[in-house]
């Protein structure tokens, strides 16, 4: 070969190996001999911090416990948190920083639907494994992306479950009270579509703001409509206000809650009126059962790590996905790579943990939504009771 041809071949070889090396680096980035770095993004402040900072505290508790017994295959787990401010700009920045600057092995989190939807293309481009644990917008996991999985039930899944449950329990006149923010819309839109599919007409379709202190107009309309089941697409605070104002009018039909209302004992106290939970059922992706002894251990750990806090259902989003992550890392073995991790995660079947109601089963490649089994609960005789 001539000099230039050899030179060119050498250059191409260097570029090729650098490319391959770069790809290999990405496969094991975030892994050292001593530790595995996992990133989480969500809001630290603002009203949605519960799904961000508090959820991350839950994950931290899991890592703390695992590290106490030596970590995963001898490597300690390190949580790298990033604040996305619940905004698209913040989420894209947080993902870029975690993937390219902090170079973590995998991501968990995604608290606000909007910001996570905006960040999805970025996550896909980076190829970094991502376990979604709080946001419920369908478009984050549907259509499935190779590296995105979810332990959170989707908004549409919950909406369908709510309507199905109401019909199953024989409700004839169904009404709806919804928040029209991003979270609410991720449930409202699929619910409207499902109603159409099932040919069911709502007797009342009402809106209530997340920070409302009063729901009397809504309560009056509901009572006048004679609805025997009311689907609530509301956070716990407005839901408590709604139920309180309805109970005040002597109106207490079957109330169908959603996965944000998972601490039923506290919710009953928040409504504050007798008979509040008599006809209240809620669906939940996570299982917050105060009578479960395993919860006490987690409560103690949370209090140890974060002295001002108490164990709350919001810790469970992060806690649950962290338990799944640790299980998959254990199965992958002592030489983890991204590809191996994603394979194991995709194969996960019937993984039971105290954080989730049903078993976690990821059906790669058809569906990457691993939590298809939310449970229905009610609060009877001071205890959490499952409803079939």
């Amino acid at each position, binding site marked *: 070969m001539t000099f230039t041809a050899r030179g060119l071949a050498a250059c191409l070889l260097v570029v090729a190996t650098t490319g391959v090396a770069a790809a290999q680096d990405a496969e094991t980035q975030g892994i050292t001999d001593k530790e595995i770095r996992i990133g989480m993004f969500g809001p630290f402040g603002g009203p949605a911090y519960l799904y961000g900072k508090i959820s991350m505290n839950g994950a931290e508790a899991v890592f703390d416990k695992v590290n106490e017994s030596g970590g995963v295959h001898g490597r300690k787990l390190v949580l790298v948190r990033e604040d996305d401010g619940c905004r698209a700009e913040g989420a894209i920045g947080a993902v870029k920083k975690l993937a390219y600057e902090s170079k973590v092995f995998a991501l968990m989190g995604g608290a606000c639907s909007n910001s996570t939807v905006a960040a999805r293309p970025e996550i896909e481009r980076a190829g970094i494994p991502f376990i979604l644990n709080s946001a419920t917008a369908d478009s984050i996991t549907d259509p499935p992306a190779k590296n995105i999985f979810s332990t959170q039930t989707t908004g549409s899944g919950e909406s369908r479950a709510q309507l199905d449950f109401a019909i199953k329990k024989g409700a004839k006149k169904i009404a709806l009270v919804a928040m029209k923010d991003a979270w609410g819309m991720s449930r409202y839109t699929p619910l409207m579509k499902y109603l159409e599919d099932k040919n069911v007409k709502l007797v009342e379709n009402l809106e209530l703001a997340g920070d409302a202190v009063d729901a009397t107009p809504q309560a009056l*309309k509901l009572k006048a409509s004679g609805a025997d089941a009311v689907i609530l697409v509301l956070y716990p605070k407005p839901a408590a206000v709604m139920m309180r104002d309805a109970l005040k009018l002597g109106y207490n039909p079957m109330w169908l809650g959603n996965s944000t209302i998972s601490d039923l004992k506290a919710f009953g106290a928040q409504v504050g009126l007798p008979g509040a939970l008599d006809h209240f059922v809620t669906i939940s992706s996570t299982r917050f059962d105060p009578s479960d002894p395993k919860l006490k251990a987690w409560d103690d750990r949370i209090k140890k790590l974060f002295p*001002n806090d108490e164990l709350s*259902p919001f810790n469970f989003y992060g806690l649950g996905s962290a338990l799944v992550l640790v299980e998959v890392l254990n199965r992958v073995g002592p030489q983890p790579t991204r590809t191996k991790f994603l394979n194991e995660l995709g194969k996960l079947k019937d993984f039971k943990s105290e954080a989730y109601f049903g078993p976690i089963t990821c059906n790669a490649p058809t569906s990457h939504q691993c939590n298809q089994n939310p449970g229905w609960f009610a609060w009877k005789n001071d205890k959490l009771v499952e409803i079939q």
Partner: protein
Amino acid sequence: MMYFSYLFATGLTTGAIYALVALGIVVVYRATNVVNFAHGEMFMLAGFMAWSAHVTFGLSYLSALALAVLGAFVLSIVMYRYAFKPLMALRDPNPILLVMIGLSFVLKGAARDVWGGKGDYLTFPPLVSPEPMQFAGIMIMSQQLVVLVAALLVMAVLLLLLRYTRAGKFMQATADNAKAARLVGLRIDRVYMYTFGVGAAVAAISAVLMAPLTLLNPDMGFALFIKGFAAAVLGGLSSIAGAIVGGLILGVAEQMAAGYIETGLQEVAAFVVIVLVLIFIPNGLFGTKVARRV
């Protein structure tokens, strides 16, 4: 008719909440010409302080109330001394507004750090039993009645304070003409300071009374401040009675709009009121027109 009366009655009770917040804003504005943007956060902090006193430390309801009022009073005096006073002398009202916005974020963030880890929002036990009462055929939560009565009481006390006590007359004089007041020997600085304190005390009392109804979370301050401001502006920022009337009107308007037009309007009613009032009746219903000093 029943529908209408229900909406109306509820409007009065939620309006009483807005009226109490508005009172705190108006009291301070009258004497100092400053709208305290951090008033909502003062309210929120007082609520949390009372919660900690009552629920965490087990103090009685009244002790918790007293502690909250004291805490708010002290905090507002500190804020006055270090944040307001240096800027009061300027002719420009903008810096004060910016400082208060900054402080409101600091207070909100601090509250989130201290109390935010306990869950979504905190419940506060009501003063009286939570059973709803019948009142001319309409069911009202007894706590809502407490708030309504309290609003009227606080208004009455403030009016009496301003008219018949020396302190009140000092506040009135400073409001009318600060320079002249200084010339006749009033210590304006003290007047301003105590006015802020009174405003904060009103916020604290309102917060503790309302907490069982509104439930406590770090973000409640801004939402209530905006509604309180809308009520105050509607009534006329310098009128105490106006604050009450404005609050009640706003409460009823919200309920009517939600009940008869669309439930989604409840959220935005306060903003629409602010915009309409400021465009068409900038002095509000009872405010006095102030000539611009050149």
